């Protein structure tokens, strides 16, 4: 699956536009995705984290998640950056719980939403 909106920017800026192949598709990775989307009342920047095997898979998850949680259509989402991040750098509690699967860590504090 090609990064749909990277398409647009890459065409504009003349950069690489093609299918992104994964180096190690059989290892679970944590992905941080920086994106910009237009909601009904304005445009916002976001940082989201997903756990997946491939970059393309993580981006697909992101599109589905944005549609579900913010009712954002694919055409109103611009993925600015996708980066594989180390487990220690994950901020979102959903992802943090899973990276600590091997030594489960539970928290009693409410999650922080401002980073």
């Amino acid at each position: 699956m090609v990064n749909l909106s990277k398409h647009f920017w890459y065409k504009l800026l003349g950069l690489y536009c093609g299918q992104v192949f994964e180096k190690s598709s059989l290892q679970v990775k944590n992905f941080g995705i920086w994106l910009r989307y237009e909601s009904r009342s304005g445009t916002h920047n976001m940082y989201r984290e997903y756990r997946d095997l491939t970059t393309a898979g993580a981006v697909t998850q992101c599109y589905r998640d944005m549609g579900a949680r913010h009712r954002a259509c694919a055409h109103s989402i611009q993925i600015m950056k996708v980066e594989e991040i180390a487990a220690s750098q994950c901020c979102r509690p959903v992802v943090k719980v899973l990276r600590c699967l091997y030594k489960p860590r539970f928290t009693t504090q409410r999650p922080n939403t401002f980073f």
Partner: protein
Amino acid sequence: MVFKRYVEIGRVAYISFGPHAGKLVAIVDVIDQNRALVDGPCSGVRRQAMPFKCMQLTDFVLKFPHSARQKHVRVAWEKENINEKWTGTRWAKKIEAREKKAKMTDFDRYKVMKAKKMRNRIIKHEVKKLQKQSSKKA
């Protein structure tokens, strides 16, 4: 004590539906709430993501570190002799019996009918004998 089998690294699972239905697989890593990275080197399942929904946990757990390579999973699988242990479980036997029943021909059904009849006749005979004995005593 409600749950006895847990999703953990090394847990052997039976795939209940999908393209790999009927095969055994080991959980190598957990991706997120719904999916696991799964590998079945000794059962012909390539390493892949698989939803938990199509997995049914068995009693067997292998010992290998998370995200271990297929080679290590295979070594652990063969060391524990999972394939043989699985065929010896009642679960696997029930599955086999179900499959056999589905493949029965009319002749097989006839044979089953005859065998059941013979068996029930023997049982009834013994029960009648015991009833007679107890009524005699009374």
